[in-house]
């Protein structure tokens, strides 16, 4: 596969049944199109990882792609619950979903440890909460100099990390800016990576507060304009809040969810087709 490829080919080659897969994005730059492609290609037994699983993880879980979720906050921000996630945890539908639950700080520490090729990271966290009792990947470690007790969490090393960025150049160097969350760490911690971008350009102009991932740490770059919709790409689009709100009704029951996935995701071949099918417009950046 060449570094610049179609999203179809990248997912076909790099996302394998049973993989640990992180699609990261902190409200901004969520790789929605890539999530749909995983559903379309019928991946199974995935261990999904993300700090803030939102609508796209709700879809992956409801579509039966995942058997495990590692996360720190799973909701539809400003709207409410993730209905498919809840149905999986509360009622094992479409099948049981094992969960490994952390805090944001712990997940960030775990990605950073993975990016740095360390087996674990340390933080001041979790102590006194109910999490260590239920999550085996939280333990205590003693400072060898002060004797102080700190929390240790193992590195996250996904098989594949997938993120969305604003731009790449033809060599495959990737540039993202605005709120870039934990995406750099997610890509650097992973064995393989896919980056969908708004556009591929000849030259990347430096931008303040940008993160650049050089071509040699990215496995595949796919040009997918609006691939983060209904999330947004700063400078290209704004967040489609109406779409997030509408998700609540679609996902409320199994039938309406399944019909929606079948018609709009499984029944289409690209994210652009999906948007036409679902009748959504991408709100443009002002």
């Amino acid at each position, binding site marked *: 596969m060449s570094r610049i490829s179609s999203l179809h080919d990248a997912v076909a080659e790099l996302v394998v049944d049973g993989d640990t897969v992180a699609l990261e994005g902190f409200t901004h730059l969520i790789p929605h199109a890539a999530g749909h492609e995983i559903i379309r290609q019928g991946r199974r037994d995935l261990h999904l990882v993300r700090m803030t699983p939102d609508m796209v993880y709700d879809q992956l879980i409801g579509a039966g792609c995942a058997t495990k979720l590692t996360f720190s906050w799973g909701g539809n921000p400003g709207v409410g619950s993730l209905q498919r996630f809840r149905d999986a945890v509360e009622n094992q539908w479409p099948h049981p979903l094992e969960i490994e639950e952390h805090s944001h700080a712990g997940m960030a520490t775990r990605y950073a440890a993975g990016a740095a090729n360390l087996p674990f990271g340390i933080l001041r966290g979790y102590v006194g909460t109910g*999490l260590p009792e*239920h999550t085996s990947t939280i333990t205590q470690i003693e400072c060898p100099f002060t004797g102080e007790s700190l929390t240790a969490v193992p590195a996250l090393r996904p098989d594949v990390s997938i993120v969305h960025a604003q731009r790449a150049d033809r060599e495959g160097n990737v540039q993202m800016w605005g709120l870039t969350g*934990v995406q750099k760490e997610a890509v650097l911690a992973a064995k393989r990576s896919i980056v969908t971008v708004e556009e591929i350009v000849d030259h990347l102009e430096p931008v303040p507060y940008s993160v650049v991932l050089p071509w040699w740490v990215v496995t595949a770059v796919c040009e997918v304009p609006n691939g983060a919709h209904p999330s947004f790409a700063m400078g290209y689009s704004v967040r489609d809040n109406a779409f997030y709100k509408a998700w609540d009704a679609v996902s409320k029951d199994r039938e309406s969810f399944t019909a929606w996935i079948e018609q709009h995701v499984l029944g289409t071949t690209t994210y652009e087709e999906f948007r036409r099918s679902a009748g959504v417009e991408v709100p443009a950046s002002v």
Partner: protein
Amino acid sequence: MSDVAPITEDYTTDELMIVNAARQLGALAAAGRPVCFVGIGLPSTAANLARRLYSPAPVLVYESGCIGSKPTRLPLSIGDGELGETADAVVSVPEIFAYWLQAGRIDVGFLGGAQLDKYANINSTVIGDYEHPSTRLPGAGGAPEIAASAGAVMVIMRQSKRAFVERCDFRSSVGYGDGPGDRQRFGLQGGGPKWVITDLGVLEPDPVTCELTMVALHPGVSREHAVAATGWSLQFAGEVSTTTPPTAGELDALRVLQAA
């Protein structure tokens, strides 16, 4: 319109909570600009209202990595573009938690949740048993470390018997644990919850017992009402004040902010 803004009762309970939270930030600001770690929703609205009402204004830090954001309108989500555009600095999420929150650089953190117990521990994880929950909630998110490391924590929550419970089903973040001395035992460096702003009034931890105690009631709210809306045997401070209703000026500023 006179110099003294007229008092109006034409406000929602959300507005009541937001205004009271903003005032508390304003009181802190007078003693030195507080650095606030802000999520989305009521706390973000309160912090942004305080930025407009008080000088010097609180400094806003968002867990998405924005430091010193000065949004002109209310952010719809924690990753809202304007938060980055108006920030003094934008950093990664690992950095915001390690170098800023954990390092003790945050004066005030905000928390909310589905359940709050009398020691200000909060549950935003599950209702019922963890392995077989009756309701699976979003989870802890940033709360455990905000509760551990912020200089002080402000909780904004509607008060009800279902939400204000004797003991949380799950402890997503620690207030005072099982009582005095627990924060020290856990090695938590922050000061813990100092204020709980509700739709009925304000609770603060008792300096001796650490139990949340009603220190103020909103106008028209009776002690009986507060007791009935609390799942533990609610105590009242020696002197319980009545909060000043939101002023027209405060409400105007808030509504302008929300309409922007």
